[in-house]
């Protein structure tokens, strides 16, 4: 009986351990998935902010340069354009869902062509084709600014700003905003998936617990019929013997400690009878 009970409890301990390990593994996986999604979302927002910052810096420097005639701001504009390109390339590499980058790619390329053309003054030259490094053929076809026609300001630079740059700038900021909102909306199906993952994470643990409850119930049942009930029967029979001298008689089905105890009581009663005789 002792061995059986030990094995029984060890089984329950094992199951508890398995349940615990499963919970740990599944929750770790769930936590990792959630972390990945949140990290990607945060990074998207950071990148969008950096693009907006760079575009804003570019805008300010070009206002100074074109409207107020401060050409010293051209170097700031070049730096801002490089910054914009760098962030854009990073966004391309790290984006969670690249399908949202198309309109941003279009706006950024358009901006680069226009700004490169402007910064090429006071020696007005047509913008070269190598400025289209990041432009895909399809995108290049759709550009409103023709690279060959992107000759900068012919007469009044402030007109260039209002006529050409402002609309391109507006398109870029709109594309960045769209990028920000769309990446956020793309999180919805992912969070839905997280909900399913959470369900899946809990299922094995729940099943283990159900099995454990079944085993505990069985253990209770076996303890009752193999240990508790024989004890109670022996107690009653011994009480009957001591009170009414009814012969001590208890049936035991298993060859275990309970049977040994019963046999020892039988022996003891036999010895008492002999000594009385």
């Amino acid at each position: 009986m002792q061995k059986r009970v030990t094995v029984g409890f060890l089984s329950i301990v094992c199951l508890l351990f398995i349940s615990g390990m499963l919970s740990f593994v599944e929750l770790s996986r769930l936590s990792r998935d959630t972390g990945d999604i949140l990290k990607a979302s945060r990074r998207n927002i950071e990148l969008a902010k950096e693009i907006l910052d760079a575009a804003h810096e570019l805008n300010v420097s070009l206002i100074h340069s074109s409207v107020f005639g401060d050409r010293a701001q051209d170097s700031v504009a070049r730096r801002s354009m490089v910054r914009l390109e760098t962030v854009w390339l990073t966004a391309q590499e790290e984006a969670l869902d690249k399908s949202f980058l198309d309109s941003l790619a279009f706006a950024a390329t358009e901006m680069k062509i226009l700004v490169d053309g402007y910064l090429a003054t006071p020696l007005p030259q047509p913008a070269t084709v190598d400025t289209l490094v990041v432009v895909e053929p399809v995108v290049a076809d759709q550009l409103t600014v023709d690279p060959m026609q992107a000759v900068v300001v012919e007469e009044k630079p402030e007109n260039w700003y209002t006529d050409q740059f402002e609309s391109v700038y507006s398109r870029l900021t709109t594309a960045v905003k769209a990028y920000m909102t769309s990446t956020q909306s793309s999180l919805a199906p992912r969070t839905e998936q997280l909900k399913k993952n959470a369900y899946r994470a809990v299922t094995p643990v729940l099943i283990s617990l159900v099995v454990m409850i079944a085993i505990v119930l069985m253990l209770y049942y076996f303890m009752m019929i193999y240990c508790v009930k024989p004890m109670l029967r022996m107690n009653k029979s011994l009480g009957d013997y001591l009170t009414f001298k009814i012969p001590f008689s208890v049936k035991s089905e298993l060859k275990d400690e309970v049977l040994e105890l019963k046999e020892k009581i039988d022996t003891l009663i036999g010895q008492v009878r002999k000594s009385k005789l």
Partner: protein
Amino acid sequence: MRIDLVLRYVGMVMLFIAAFMLVSVGISYASGVDSAFYPLLLSALLTALLGAFPQIFVEKKGHLSTKEGFAVVVGSWLVACIVGMFPYLIWGGEFNLINAWFESVSGFTTTGATILNDIEALPRGLLFWRMSSTWIGGMGVVMFALVILPSMGRSKMTLSNVELSTLAKENFNYRTQVIVRILLVVYLGLTLLSLVSLKMAGMNWFDSLCHAMSAVSTSGFSTKNLSIAFYNSPAIETILILTMAISGIHFGLIYATVTGKRNNVFRSEVTRYYVGMLLVMSLLIAISLYGADLYSTFSTSFRHAVFQVVSVTTTSGFATADTNLWTPFAVVILIVGSMVCASAGSTTGGLKINRLILAVKMMKARLLQQRHPNAVIRVRLDGMIQEHDMLHSVMVFIVAYVVLILIGALIGTMWGLDLTTAFTGSVACMGNIGPGFGEVGSMDNFASMPTVIKGVDSLLMLFGRLEIFGLIQLFFMKWWK
């Protein structure tokens, strides 16, 4: 009732199921550790633990009584269906709690109905587990327990009384240990034969194995969304028709035929009626389909008609055509076939043709009795006089069977299903067939059924498999004392 002893034997069945889960783990591993590996491994461990626990405490003692035998069979089936859910639930996908229960019950009762919209999306390990459940169910969970428990002695017959139709044992004139051996030899032999034939007909090994297991157990589970229609191969269809038709014959008679015994299939009245019914139904449907211009040639009509008739009558449920598009006449014949079903003593479910023959003979005897009130009229089947008790139980069973179908259909219509879907769905589940007509047609599934209907249908499957009264007894507290 010695519940501890019952738990011990149910535990042994659990260990057997765990072994099959481990085989599925092996398949999953061989398929490049697919997504079913972890769910199957965990399920195998939990099932093994659950099965091993009673073995620790309960010692082998004495023989089982009839009541205990019933409890072992019914308990094994219910627990098998519960542990059979584990791999599905842990794997996820389309399986929520009710879907996993439905699929598991459908497997172990060899019904073959499914809630899966995309069967081909399942990993191989899980597909194999699905087929294993149906293969285990086909032979009877308890029969396996009997095979691995040679020390049970006389109690073997006690258990097989419940598993086999009560009519089936009338034809057995063997000792119970021999019966177990016969069933095993026939079952394994048919599976192997079907496996090799399907492979030779062009299926790959995995699909051959799965379809062989499914055909022999007459469940109708397939690895393809289009079932057998996917292969569009007359050779494969012919092999499956033969496998299903043979699986619908009394296994004892198959064994007797193979071993050259006198009491064989060719001398069996039941088998003659069974084969005759298959042929007549196929011919009538083929004429109807050809007449309605559904198929261009008569041979094509006959090919599809034979396959569907054998599939439905043997309670398999494989499909080569969308029977929803067939003529009303063909549909009615198929519904009749799905209610009559095949012989007792086979892996098929349903009413069994033996009962129908006896019912018809009883009606004939009743008419004769009215004409000759003093005559002593005996009802015979296969040359044997049938006792009054047996005839009475046949009639009670038929009434109970029809009543349960009607209750199922009533609940179905109450939950908004159309009459065809509700009625044929109940017939298909009660008879362990699988597909019905309407929304649960041969090319559809039970995915769109409301949760309550899935629950009711799975209960009908259990009633059908356990021959109704085995399960009903479980609900009476007095029975447990």
